[in-house]
């Protein structure tokens, strides 16, 4: 009996991270493949025969996807597991990004002529403390989490669509704040340098040797992202399969019934918002540290929608789905650019003009339509498609 795969006989195996040894094996394979892809050309596996190097460009997109996955997991906790639709994820991403930039960034001063004294004085344009990554990554998460804590009472008072509206308003208010706090954000159209990713003196944004292996800065960031994502995903998975996760699911499915069963709504909605904001803050900090420059106007509704799309396309209330969704959405622009080189997509132009739509416009249309199509045809997202494929092959060649 115990040897039968797919048979769940007790709660412990129901809540296990891996259902079977097969899953464990494939997860290990996935990790090995990821690490090998990350190392790429740095270590020769079969010299002259196999070249697994992703190339700098693809690797950089992969790094972005790894960090975005963290944020997508965060949104999935509040929207997928706890059922509280939040359109305000961009705000928390922004808070994290700017907190990190202030703590880990460089101060910019400017010589200003003081009319009263007739002398030049130093005026601070953008504040920055150049602290270590060990400080600014958690701090970005904590500040965002604190703001999430402030928002959560609203979530307790409001339900459903009204909550979606308030979080939508949050994005607009946040956008205004980011534009106006110029000493923190650098101001509209100018922006500022982001935090420097240096851990105890080890720079992730510079090429160099690690343990005798030469790693480019993309590779270093890739491994940083991979390690952080595995940690954050494990934490989220453990949260989801524990008492808290079950309580959140109960709140999502029927909040009044959950309350009657003795689940304090206020506390669990608060937990969901705080954890989700923490993830968003960490993502904001790291994602923009990779890019290097930060604009106050980039945290708009569109960014929130992008994260909603990651959750929906990937799979609501699944951790692996969040990661798949993030990779899909981050690689989409690249995919669209590749499509535009094919002949029957000739209506997409490569440049800014010509053709019917430009690549970036087409990408947004695809994006909108993907959300629509996934909602209509596969509400479980990529995760659902994967489950269907898996179930099909399980019984192949029989249909059931």
């Amino acid at each position: 009996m115990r040897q039968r795969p797919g048979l769940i006989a007790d709660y412990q195996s129901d809540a296990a991270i891996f259902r079977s040894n097969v899953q464990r094996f494939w997860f290990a394979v996935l990790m090995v493949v990821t690490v090998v892809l990350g190392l790429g050309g740095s270590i020769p596996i079969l010299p002259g025969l196999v070249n697994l190097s992703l190339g700098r460009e693809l690797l950089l997109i992969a790094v972005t996807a790894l960090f975005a996955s963290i944020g997508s997991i965060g949104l999935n906790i509040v929207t997928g597991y706890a059922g509280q639709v939040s359109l305000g994820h961009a705000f928390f991403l922004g808070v994290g990004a700017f907190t990190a930039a202030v703590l880990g960034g460089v101060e910019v001063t400017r010589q200003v002529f003081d009319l009263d004294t007739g002398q030049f004085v130093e005026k601070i344009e953008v504040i920055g403390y150049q602290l270590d990554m060990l400080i600014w990554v958690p701090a970005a998460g904590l500040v965002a989490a604190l703001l999430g804590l402030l928002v959560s009472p609203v979530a307790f008072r409001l339900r459903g669509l009204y909550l979606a509206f308030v979080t939508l308003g949050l994005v607009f208010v946040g956008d205004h704040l980011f534009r106006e706090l110029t000493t923190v954000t650098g101001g509209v159209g100018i922006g500022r340098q982001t935090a420097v990713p240096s851990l105890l003196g080890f720079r992730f944004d510079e090429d160099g040797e690690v343990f005798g292996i030469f790693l480019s800065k993309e590779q270093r960031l890739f491994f940083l992202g991979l390690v952080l994502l595995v940690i954050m995903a494990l934490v989220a998975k453990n949260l989801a399969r524990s008492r808290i996760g079950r309580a959140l699911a109960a709140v999502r499915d029927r909040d009044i019934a959950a309350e009657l069963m003795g689940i304090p709504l206020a506390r669990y909605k608060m937990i969901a918002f705080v954890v989700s904001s923490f993830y968003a803050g960490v993502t904001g900090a790291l994602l923009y540290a990779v890019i290097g420059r930060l604009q106050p106007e980039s945290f708009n509704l569109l960014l929130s929608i992008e994260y909603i799309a990651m959750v929906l396309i990937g799979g609501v209330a699944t951790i692996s789905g969040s990661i798949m969704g993030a990779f899909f959405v981050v690689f989409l622009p690249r995919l669209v650019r590749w499509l535009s080189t094919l002949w029957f997509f000739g209506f997409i132009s490569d440049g800014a003009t010509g053709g019917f739509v430009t690549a970036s416009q087409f990408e947004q249309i695809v994006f909108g339509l993907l959300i629509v199509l996934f909602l209509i045809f596969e509400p479980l997202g990529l995760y659902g498609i994967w489950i269907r494929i898996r179930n099909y092959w399980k019984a192949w060649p029989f249909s059931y």
Partner: protein
Amino acid sequence: MTQFLQAVVNGFALAAIYALIALGFVIIYKSMQVLNFAQPALLLIGAYWVVYFVDIWRWSFWVAVLMGAGLAALTGVMLERVFLRPMVGKPVFAVAIMTIGLNTAINIVALDLLGIDLRPFDNPWGLSVLSLGDIRIAHSQIAAVIAAVVLVAALLVFFKYSRMGLAMRATAFDQEVVLAQGVSVPMVFAVSWAIASVLAMVGGVFLGVGIGLDGSVTVTALKALPVVVIGGLDSISGALVGALMVAMFEMFAATYQPQYAEFLGKNFSQVVPYVVMFIVLLVRPYGLFGTEEVERI
């Protein structure tokens, strides 16, 4: 005093436009419990047709508006049939998020058709202004208020006295019972989307008559969301009150905030609707006139 009256005048004109857009939201919400985030896109594409007919085909403004209304209604009905109908019975959020996706897609197409520049178009009012003492009232503002009043009155009469209006009110009440009485619920859905699209289009035209139409009207259209929320999602009178409230607060903020509360920053008036929404929702979670949800377990 002049400043105050000027703010009131501008507030009324803005309220008229908000009311038009907000009514569309409410009508769709009442008929099929769908929160239509695609309203800004409908506004943009509707107004674009008018610009297209006036500017490119050189039609008279009124003919263009009629034709635009037809096309806008068609767009609305088609959207509902193709994308929203399969979602009947799905969770409210899923549908709401889907309309966000639709909004993104349609917006891009509309913006691509419209171009980056402001698109001025011939209209009966142009930039002419009526001066009462120091207060300046644009003719287009008066027209917007009149149009809003006429359209709202017409809609209220339609809902109260026509068969279709009765069917729509009944559908808002209970879809299944209405089906059993022989009302075509799909028809009701189609009509509500058509009405909402036309209202949005008229709002868009009035947003564009001054200096011209461009993509920024969607930002204004989105501010109709706080309007609806403040009024209560399912209340027509709420939408009107909300429109007036939001527009007035916004205009007062635009007038006085730079003088008295400069620390709040430039363009603070743009976020005022959202701030008002926060406050109203904290006091009344279902808006001012919204029906409180009664839930069974």
